[in-house]
């Protein structure tokens, strides 16, 4: 009976080799896990960070990242940020120094001076972009940087709208960064009260019709901000509000505006509440009869939104989509939403629950990188000196994701369906090849990427096809192949 013999032999083999197979598996799993946490809680691994996680383990790495102040940042990053003067100015100073020139009554505008001022203001976008890229590449507080990307897109503003070219950097510094791992309510309040957001979604122009301050271009109600606050920032499109609620919230937020230049009242504030444009009639919002009036009424409404179960679900869905899979399972979203409500929107706690979920661990390399994630992770893995971030910004422009350039308030998506396109794939490979050759112009010297260095990071976790193609390729092409591989397009 040859089959029986074979079966017995197979069983014997199985018994003999089983321990070996198990130990090998036990070794392989951590390597994948390490790459996984670095792909999701960071913009991909560097060799240094990979070794760090290997030493302390994934659990401790997650705990560290959730407490960014415990992690020292490299000196180089601090030095880079110190060069960027406009980051330290407040919105009033920024407008004074970089806003459009003021022409006193009776004087003619001087086109030459106006053009020069138009050039000057560009330093703000430049500083903000440099700060963002250097932090994303160099900071060891990677989860914080990941959350800045997440929240900036959630509360997107566009640098090309009105005075937002002056305020875009401050918006991120003041309204997003301090709360990136904090409470959702604080983020909502900070973004809603920032002049960049009030300008971006036209609330500066919205007034109660017939109110004493409703004049000229500000003579009536504008629904834009109110609609997006509910649809995008809080409840979500299916969050159960009506057109009537949109109008009510617009009325509630009348008077939330930008302080005029040289204002005598509150000169140190760029965003103010202008009572003479506010609608003081009593209001019912989402079924709540509002108790307060004036500015406090807006805060009461924001609190209702921040604590709504629809908001908890909406934010949880977005987090699960960003950190787990494009279409996250409903049970996971519900679990996160429950945690959100229990902790009054403590993002750190929600993330803790998310990182502990099996769905998170089961989603290895199931997310397609956005152009932002692709570009940053490539530079991090390459470990080449970066003095000039412009080639990175240029690559993101070409891939359809210019930094601070998302026109619409929904921000950039992070799904495969939004970013995978035939042109994108060839262009990403082009970027990988140029980076690998040292030909991007990131620093004065040409620094080709060491394929051995990349191999030390990804060697064990690359697919068989990738390993084989890389091995058989000429040495000069290997780094490009790793950074341009299908493996590297995913996180």
């Amino acid at each position, binding site marked *: 009976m040859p089959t029986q013999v074979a079966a017995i032999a197979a069983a014997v083999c199985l018994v003999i080799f089983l321990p070996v197979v198990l130990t090998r598996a036990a070794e392989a799993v951590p390597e994948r896990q390490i790459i996984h946490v670095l792909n999701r809680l960071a913009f991909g691994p560097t060799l240094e960070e990979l070794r760090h996680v290997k030493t302390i383990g994934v659990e401790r790495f997650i705990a560290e990242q959730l407490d960014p102040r415990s992690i020292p940042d490299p000196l180089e990053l601090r030095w880079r940020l110190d060069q960027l003067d406009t980051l330290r100015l407040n919105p009033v100073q920024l407008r004074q120094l970089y806003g459009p020139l003021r022409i006193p009554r009776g004087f003619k505008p001087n086109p030459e001076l106006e053009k020069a001022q138009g050039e000057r203001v560009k330093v703000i976008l430049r500083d903000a972009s440099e700060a963002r890229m250097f932090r994303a590449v160099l900071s060891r507080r990677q989860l914080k940087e990941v959350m800045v990307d997440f929240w900036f897109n959630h509360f997107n503003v566009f640098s090309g709208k009105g005075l937002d070219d002056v305020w875009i950097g401050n918006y991120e510094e003041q309204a997003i960064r301090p709360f990136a791992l904090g409470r959702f309510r604080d983020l909502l309040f900070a973004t809603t009260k920032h002049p960049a957001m009030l300008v971006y979604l036209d609330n500066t122009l919205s007034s109660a019709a017939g109110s004493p301050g409703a004049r000229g271009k500000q003579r009536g109600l504008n629904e834009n901000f109110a609609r997006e606050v509910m649809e995008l920032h809080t409840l979500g499109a299916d969050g159960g509000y009506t057109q009537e609620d949109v109008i009510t919230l617009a009325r509630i937020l009348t008077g939330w505006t930008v302080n005029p230049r040289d204002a005598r009242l509150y000169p140190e504030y760029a965003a103010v509440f202008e009572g003479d444009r506010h609608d003081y009639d009593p209001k019912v919002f989402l079924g709540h009869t509002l108790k307060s009036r004036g500015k406090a009424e807006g805060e009461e409404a924001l609190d209702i939104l921040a604590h709504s179960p629809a908001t908890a679900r909406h934010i949880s869905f977005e987090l699960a989509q960003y950190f787990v899979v494009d279409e996250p399972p409903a049970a996971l979203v519900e679990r996160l939403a429950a945690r959100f409500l229990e902790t009054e929107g403590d993002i750190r706690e929600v993330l803790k629950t998310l990182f502990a979920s099996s769905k998170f661990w089961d989603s290895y390399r199931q997310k397609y990188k956005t152009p932002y994630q692709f570009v940053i992770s490539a530079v991090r893995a390459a470990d080449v000196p970066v003095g000039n971030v412009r080639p990175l910004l240029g690559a993101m422009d070409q891939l359809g994701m210019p930094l601070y350039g998302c026109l619409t308030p929904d921000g950039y998506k992070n799904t495969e369906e939004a970013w995978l396109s*035939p042109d994108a794939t060839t*262009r990403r490979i082009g970027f990988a090849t140029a980076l690998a050759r040292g030909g991007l112009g990131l620093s004065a010297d040409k620094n080709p990427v060491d394929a051995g260095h990349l191999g030390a990071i990804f060697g064990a976790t690359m697919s068989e096809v990738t390993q084989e193609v890389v091995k058989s390729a000429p040495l000069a092409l290997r780094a490009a192949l790793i950074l341009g591989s299908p493996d590297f397009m995913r996180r």
Partner: protein
Amino acid sequence: MIADRREFLKSAAIGLFVLGRDALAAAADGGQKRLVMVLLRGAVDGLNVVIPFAEEAYYQERRSIAIAPPGKPDGALALDGHFGLHPALASLMPLWSDRNLAFVHAAGSPDATRSHFDAQLYLENGTPGHSTTRDGWMNRLLLALPGPRGATDAVSIGPILPRILAGKAPVATVPLGPGGAQALPIDQPDIGSAFDRLYSGDEALGKSYREGRETRAKLVELLAKERPIADNGAPPPAGFPGQAARLAQLMRRDPAIRLAAIGLGGWDTHVNQGNHRGQLAGHLRPLGEGLAAFAQGSGESWRGTVVVVLSEFGRTVRENGNGGTDHGHGNLIWVLGGAVNGGRVYGDWPGLAPAQLYQRRDLAVTTDFRSVLAVILDRHLRLSDRQVEAVFPGVPPVSPELVQLIPG
């Protein structure tokens, strides 16, 4: 009978493709039936594109942004006794006179959402109210069209693949900005073949990779080398007119292209919309010029082309307190092409009196946007009823008037 004629034209086109470049250009002449979709993202104010100047309510509700009636200074360009065209679109009037331009007014989605993002999703997946449809209706359309499938049967302009074209059938993304055809490292044979192997093992990314490689092979040849023909050596204009001229050239040179889509932003005019001049006028002018340039550049193939311009929804009838308009409902659909029965504003005009408005604020929808597209699918692209149903499940029946949009 019709099917046979089309089969003949297609095989003629394939035959000529082999013969070389001149014959190739001739093959595209009217033989290939094409559809180009222009999505105005952010909701264009259609009431200020085709102006119902005969409506008293129009002028009552739009004190600062209304366009004056034809004959008045800076007035609309008369289309008929009721409607006029925004003066910034003067470049389109020759197409109107040639009956190559039609409008369908008070058209839109049966879904009531005023969310840009949901409404654009429905416009692109073709199933209003159903957000779970993942593929775009143009991709389903591509699957329904007969014939062999190549990498450039459907092209999207820009680096991103919009939902309207996403799905099973292969599509090309074509960057038509300046430098779109610049050489990339992957065009070099040794690098290309190594990456070919690298991507052979990955299903989703491999598909996208191969489409990108095939598109580039064509694109580099068609765009880089032949530029002077379309523009007599002049540099193409910036923005949409330039893209449109290059798209026309690409389509003339590549008879395989049957579908194309392009998205344009900047229409969400909540503030300072302007009237005959200002923000909206400044966006309409290059759009009109680009569409005219596309018609011009298409040459003979214009006869077999239909261009549809539309938005996710319309804007409020009444101007808001900031010289702008907010999110509304019904809007305008523009239909252009040599195959269009134009010079006419189609649709059942519901009026602008308060009682005639949708929720007492917006232009009502009397024509489902899918019905307009269904007429084009049926009478221009020759899809069967069953195929149209596959592209737009549950599309409502088409009115006898709308059928005339495409002469049989």
